[in-house]
């Protein structure tokens, strides 16, 4: 078994807002192995993006703050590194791409300038070397006329092209881990297919791990080796991808799978999860899904369920499986 490249251990990232403390990431632990694709899935506000930004130490402070836990990356605790050491990891050992390709590139700098920056910084390339490498990267992400693109500005490119450039930039220093935060949410479905295809290909070529954050279970099924499901700042379930889709355990995961209409699988009515995600401010110490769950028991409203693995390594945080732990 490959070794862990990243390990989140009891990560806590809170936001201190006017209305109260938002525990955006509330005691999250999971790991990503070398060369593996882990999908972190959940609805908006569940803390999936904040988890990724915590790993990059890009949480804006104030109001955000990492208040506890460890993030072990390649044997080092990220949270204990100096700013300078952290900068050597960002863009070098960990690359990241974001949801909004339209706003993620600097509008006043050329594509070439932005692509060459990390190469000259981390790989100490000369301008000439960086230029050649950047052209190679542009070709690698499937954009023709690379020389012309180098001198273009972001607004001259389409959304799909910009996302390809973001990918090229993120992988330019051959990182061990690529974080992709909803990389296709802002794109059309035919472009999404191109980008996912590209990510899959690059991951194989570069042998890097991929942390893919998404809300789309279809993308999860297509891309993931391993899945982490988050709800209201907590990991509520994690399992290898086949296991998770074949045998989802947490009522929330099950609900999500049933609530999404699927092409070619026509049904009279959609299953719905009633209610909505709880207000993240000042949540108590109980199962956060309890007020929407159809199996809620008394214990669910009183105590936080522990996160327990079964014999297949399928982990879930739900009181329904209390019986299984005792075995």
């Amino acid at each position, binding site marked *: 078994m490959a070794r862990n490249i990243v390990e989140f251990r009891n990560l806590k990232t809170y936001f201190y807002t006017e209305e109260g403390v938002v525990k955006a990431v509330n005691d999250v632990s999971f790991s990503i192995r070398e060369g593996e694709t882990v999908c972190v899935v959940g609805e908006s506000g569940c803390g999936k993006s904040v988890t990724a930004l915590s790993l990059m130490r890009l949480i804006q402070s104030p109001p955000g703050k990492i208040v506890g836990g460890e993030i072990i990356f390649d044997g080092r605790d990220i949270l204990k590194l100096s700013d300078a050491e952290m900068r050597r990891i960002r863009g070098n050992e960990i690359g990241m791409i974001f949801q909004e390709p339209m706003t993620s590139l600097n509008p006043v700098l050329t594509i070439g300038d932005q692509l060459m920056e990390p190469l000259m910084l981390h790989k100490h390339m000369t301008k000439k070397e960086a230029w050649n490498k950047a052209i190679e990267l542009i070709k690698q992400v499937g954009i023709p006329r690379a020389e012309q693109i180098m001198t273009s500005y972001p607004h001259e490119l*389409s959304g799909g*092209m910009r996302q390809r450039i973001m990918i090229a930039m993120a992988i330019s220093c051959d990182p061990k881990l690529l974080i992709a935060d909803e990389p296709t949410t802002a794109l059309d479905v035919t*472009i999404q*297919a191109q980008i996912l*295809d590209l990510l899959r290909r690059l991951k194989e070529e570069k042998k890097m791990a991929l942390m893919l954050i998404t809300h789309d279970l*279809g993308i999860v*099924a297509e891309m993931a080796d391993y899945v982490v499901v988050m709800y209201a700042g907590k990991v509520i379930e994690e399992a290898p991808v086949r296991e998770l889709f074949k045998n989802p355990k947490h009522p929330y995961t099950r609900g999500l799978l049933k609530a999404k209409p699927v*092409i070619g699988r026509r049904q009279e009515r959609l299953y719905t999860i009633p209610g*909505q995600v709880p207000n993240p401010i000042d949540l108590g110490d109980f199962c956060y899904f309890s007020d929407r769950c159809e199996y809620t028991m008394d214990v669910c409203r009183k105590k936080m369920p522990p996160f327990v693995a079964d014999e297949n390594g399928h982990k879930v945080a739900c009181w329904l499986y209390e019986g299984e732990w005792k075995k």
Partner: protein
Amino acid sequence: MSEPLIEVKNLKKYFPIRGGVLQRTIGYVKAVDGVSFTINKGETLSLVGESGCGKSTVGRTIIRLYDKTDGDVLFKGIPIHSLKKSELRKLRPKMQMVFQDPFSSLNPRLRIGDAVGEALLDHGLVSKNELRDRVIEALEMCGLASYHIDRYPHEFSGGQRQRIGIARALILDPEFIVLDEPVSSLDVSIQAQIINLLMDLQQQKGLTYLFISHDLSVVEHISTRVAVMYLGNIVEMASRDELFDHPLHPYTQALLSAVPIPDPDLKRERIILEGDIPSPANPPKGCKFHTRCPFAKDICKEQVPEFRDVGGGHYVACHLV
């Protein structure tokens, strides 16, 4: 076959591009470039396509939020675009719209009760003392509580706001509602709630929907018939089952194969289209899809394919079918 409620005949909507020293019109963005279809009473016709294909413009032009460039829209036989302003105003309650963005579709400084009830009052459809009851009725029908009436939009989540938007349209007792991407900004669990609500209301009230969306799986769930748009034209239109089971146009096929399916064991042949969607200001000649079509032939580059019935109400515009 039931009677048509909406008939759209060769509708065109061009937006001018200005330029030159005197800011004269130097070209047009052909957002909608000649589309024709009918919507029958009680059915849901879906318009599906990627960004810039003109689906929202069709929706807005049908209910005359935009003035047409050419063609005709008939609502129960009435040519919408020939009405005077006052006549149009009288007809407004019958044709409603639910918007995409639950955050910008409600006036932030208006109480929910006012937002939902004001049109009823303005059209003189209800007396002042009945108003509150009618508003509460509409809110409850959409899964909201009566005490929400005094609240403001920012006190609600996205899904609840979308319910308010639906209540606002519903209270006028419309016959036809344009649903412009009503669920695309919502999370999956909330999306399902809203879709079910829309379908329930349609059944109870016999509503007719034009459902505009880019999400094929939602479209498949909700539609009676589906029209696929590309760069201002409908390239394929058929009943839901026919379109999803036997897509004929290469673009429809590509779209369908591009949708990720939540089943890790499913291995599909995927058609990945090359390149980007061309600009609607300068669309390709001939078949507009030929620049990305994996099967394009010479004829596609020159001749515009005819939009024709290939049997059983399945329309397609492709030389290769």
